[in-house]
């Protein structure tokens, strides 16, 4: 009992859940937009790295973390165009292009890190995105400790999930996106520009993945490290599928991943091998997936190249 209280009664567990979930949710939300328009996006990992790196670089150059954030998002969009263009114009295999971007981005950011900053890492005085304190909220005993004081991008993420849901399900452009991802030919016959909509979806994905990267390098941390995403892009992919390609679903499954990681952190020191406790997030996911969530259906045209009229 006491043990449970110690672990589950600690607000840090939930604050940490939120912090760990944020990059996943941002990238998963981005992936949702991309795949809803029919372009499979497994390049989140690579795009996050690019965003993380250029976020730091521009923040250092301009002494502004906000410009860094902007740069990371722009870098994310540019990188995502390397997916969008061949996927849309050349009907290339989107999975392979995604893998190519991941390999390329991992190499490029490491190469640039060493070329620009040497082996010592990025400057330690890099400006970082501020932690925000919500005045009233932070005073509420337990809740305040969980969500009263978090990094700027944590709140931005929460807002973006709501906005994302609204855009996807309550705007004309969202309707067009969903249509294009399900049946591009049909959308085209009523005059929807499949090409433009797909570019838009993939770019939103790139922007949000870039933002997720910036969160890692300028929000959660304060600098860039080789491969600092550590597979979060792939976990975000899982979160997106887990969340059934919806914004709220992506958020919830990211929170689940975040919670499981945070829990495995706080369960330590109880005489169990850290390796075994570390399996918790993954076991939990499988259990949830087989027990509760079940089948999830991708948008019908997801990953299928579309050939515009001849």
């Amino acid at each position: 009992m006491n043990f449970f209280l110690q672990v589950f009664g600690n607000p840090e567990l939930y604050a940490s859940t939120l912090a760990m979930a944020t990059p996943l949710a941002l990238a998963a939300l981005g992936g949702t937009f991309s795949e809803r328009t029919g372009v499979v996006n497994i390049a989140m990992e690579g795009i996050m790295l690019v965003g993380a790196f250029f976020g730091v670089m521009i923040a250092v150059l301009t002494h502004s973390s906000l410009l860094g954030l902007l740069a990371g998002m722009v870098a994310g969009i540019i990188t995502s165009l390397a997916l969008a263009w061949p996927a849309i114009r050349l009907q290339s295999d989107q999975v392979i292009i995604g893998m190519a971007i991941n390999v390329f981005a991992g190499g490029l950011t490491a190469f640039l890190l060493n070329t620009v900053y040497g082996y010592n890492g990025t400057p330690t005085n890099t400006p970082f995105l501020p932690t925000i304190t919500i005045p009233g909220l932070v005073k509420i005993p337990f809740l305040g400790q969980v969500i009263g004081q978090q990094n700027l991008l944590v709140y931005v993420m929460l807002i973006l999930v709501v906005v994302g849901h609204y855009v996807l399900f309550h705007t004309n452009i969202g309707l067009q996106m969903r249509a294009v991802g399900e049946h591009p030919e049909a959308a085209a016959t009523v005059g929807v520009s499949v090409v433009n909509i797909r570019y838009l979806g993939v770019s939103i994905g790139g922007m949000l993945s870039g933002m997720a990267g910036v969160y890692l390098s300028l929000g959660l941390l304060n600098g860039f490290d080789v491969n600092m995403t550590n597979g979060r892009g792939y976990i975000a992919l899982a979160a997106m599928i887990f969340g059934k390609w919806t914004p709220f679903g992506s958020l919830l499954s990211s929170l689940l991943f975040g919670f499981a990681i945070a829990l495995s952190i706080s369960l330590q020191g109880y005489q169990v091998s850290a390796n075994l406790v570390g399996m918790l997030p993954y076991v939990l996911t499988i259990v949830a997936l087989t027990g509760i969530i079940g089948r999830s259906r991708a948008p019908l045209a997801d990953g299928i190249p579309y050939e515009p009229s001849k």
Partner: protein
Amino acid sequence: MKRLWKALSLPLYAVITGLILGAIIMAIAKYNPWSAYGSLLMGAFGNPIAIGNTVSGAIPLMLTALGIAVAFRTGLFNIGAEGQYWVGAMAAVFIGYNFASMPWYFHIPLALIAAMVAGGLWGGVIPGLAKAWVGAHEVITTMMMSYIAILLAHYMVEKGPMMQQGFVPQSPPITSSATLPTILTNSNLSAGLYIALAAVVVVHILLFYTSFGYKLRAVGYNAFAARYSGLPVALYTVLSLGISGVLAGLAGGVQFLGVDYQLTDTFQSGYGYTAIVVALLARNNPLGIVLASIFFSALSSGSQMMQITSGVSANMTDVITGIIIFFVAADRLYAYILRTFRKKQVIAVARKEVQG
């Protein structure tokens, strides 16, 4: 001959484009691309030992990619081959350092079978059943199982039952009776090559010459039609992911019986991910996988030499690799450029005619 050229010309274009772009980046970063590529080539194929190491590096890629291709053929994306590789490695090493008194002709097969069973169960049973029963997406389950496998491997050698007594966390080395002989002195190339090539042939035959393979492919292309044809789609899902895992597990087994001999505390081979690219580039064709895996292995082994003699960091090979993969996938780019070019030519000719 024409078909062969058609199949090969595209990767060739892609490689050339990738190398040119890589050269430009290197030149910008003030390296000499000529010497860099020269050393890359030397490092990969410069002498028999280098060739041996390159081919040796292709073995686990080949096997893992074969597995991924089988799953792809059934419409399944096995993204967790990395973990299946490691459970295969664990099983093989465990058998390999126990049973020292066994003759090699029992010991080696036993260790490899253990590797295959372990990989097959890991990839097939949980993800396969979860997919078949409740439709749990295999991308998630195989990925999660992969993370679990790697943590399990850490546990095994750090404080767990496979730790060798002593200073460092590692397993005991396998005994000589479980060791695959080296077939090229001073290189990593072991008799595992024969196993890998045999697996390629077996998978090729399985897919294209047996009714089982026909059914696997039918399920992959159209699960509805497969069901209509009386095929138990769920069973084939489990079997396909299972076979996928068997091959990834075998990759781990062969690598450890032939090259690594004991588990040390690094569990990132990267084969599981590179193999996805290999399978995709080879269009899931077993014979194509042989070439593609040698190519990727050459890039990797050559990149080491490139660092040593030209100082270009290995990250640069990732950049070039990424570009090459990109251009292989963007196969229509060449047609696109040609078309645009031709159009311009036609327009130019037309203009001339009008003017003339």
